[in-house]
């Protein structure tokens, strides 16, 4: 199985520069999913790293690795009920992430594989778990991720700030 950006973008609302899943290589809807992400020095996270920074400065930021895994989890949770546009439907909100273990850093040039399993799904809330591997070795373990889909109309929303941002020309 080899599912690329088109189906991924038809399924979840995340977009550049924070769409952090490159390819889905296995999906059993309602059960499990495996996805790949290539880490590259061309990512925005590396844009301003100092010229004389040590090699360790190039460890891929753990929050982005977690985000990437979580996007694989969202893909699994909504695989059969795609939600590519939050304005047209529901917004994916992480309710909680507990017990994430970071085993090793990854660097540009690495291909990581996210593995996600659904532990439980109740209505619009899913509990997922899994891990991330690099070269067959575990680099991240996620033991408890609670994902909630919420109707966008229930959120206060960023409208006022967005208007300010538009006035400011950003």
């Amino acid at each position, binding site marked *: 199985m080899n599912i690329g950006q088109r189906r991924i973008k038809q399924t979840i609302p995340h977009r550049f520069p924070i769409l952090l899943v490159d390819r889905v290589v296995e999906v059993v809807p309602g059960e499990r999913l495996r996805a790949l992400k290539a880490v590259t020095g061309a990512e925005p996270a590396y844009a301003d790293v100092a010229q004389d920074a040590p090699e360790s400065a190039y460890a891929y930021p753990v929050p982005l690795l977690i985000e990437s895994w979580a996007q694989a989890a969202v893909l699994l949770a909504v695989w059969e009920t795609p939600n590519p546009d939050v*304005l047209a439907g529901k917004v994916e909100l992480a309710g909680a992430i507990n017990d994430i273990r970071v085993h090793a850093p990854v660097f540009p040039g690495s291909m990581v594989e996210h593995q996600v399993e659904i532990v439980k799904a109740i209505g619009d809330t899913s509990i997922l778990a899994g891990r991330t591997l690099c070269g067959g070795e575990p680099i991240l373990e996620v033991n408890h991720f609670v994902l909630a889909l919420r109707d966008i109309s229930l959120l206060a929303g960023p409208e006022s700030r967005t208007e300010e941002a538009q006035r400011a020309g950003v």
Partner: protein
Amino acid sequence: MTSGAAATERATPTRMAVRLTSPAGVEPVRAEVAVDAGDPVFAGHYPGFPVLPGVYLVEFVDQAMRLWLDGAPATLLVVERCRFLRPVYGGDTVEIEINLSRADRALRSSASLRTADGAVADIRLRHDTEVRT
């Protein structure tokens, strides 16, 4: 990049920068960060509904810990818990209060994050504070 692109010490998801608001060495640690509505991440998270990715709050607590440690080694080993209570939007200021506890070489941080609208997240991290080879 939205900033003047000063060099960073390490790869980071964002140029939004945490600053400490409590004196060095004092606990609890207090810090704050202004959430820049112009940050590039909002274009993709999500189109038409810009909301800060929850993991950015983990980054902010990690940044606050690194500032507080003032260059001492710190490797993020465990995210014990993140409870996201309310979305954070561009223009918000996130205030962070962190209580610390220590066990051997591990430093545990228990952070409460809030904006003017109220509590937004509780985050507990564990850092290794010895140099890794």
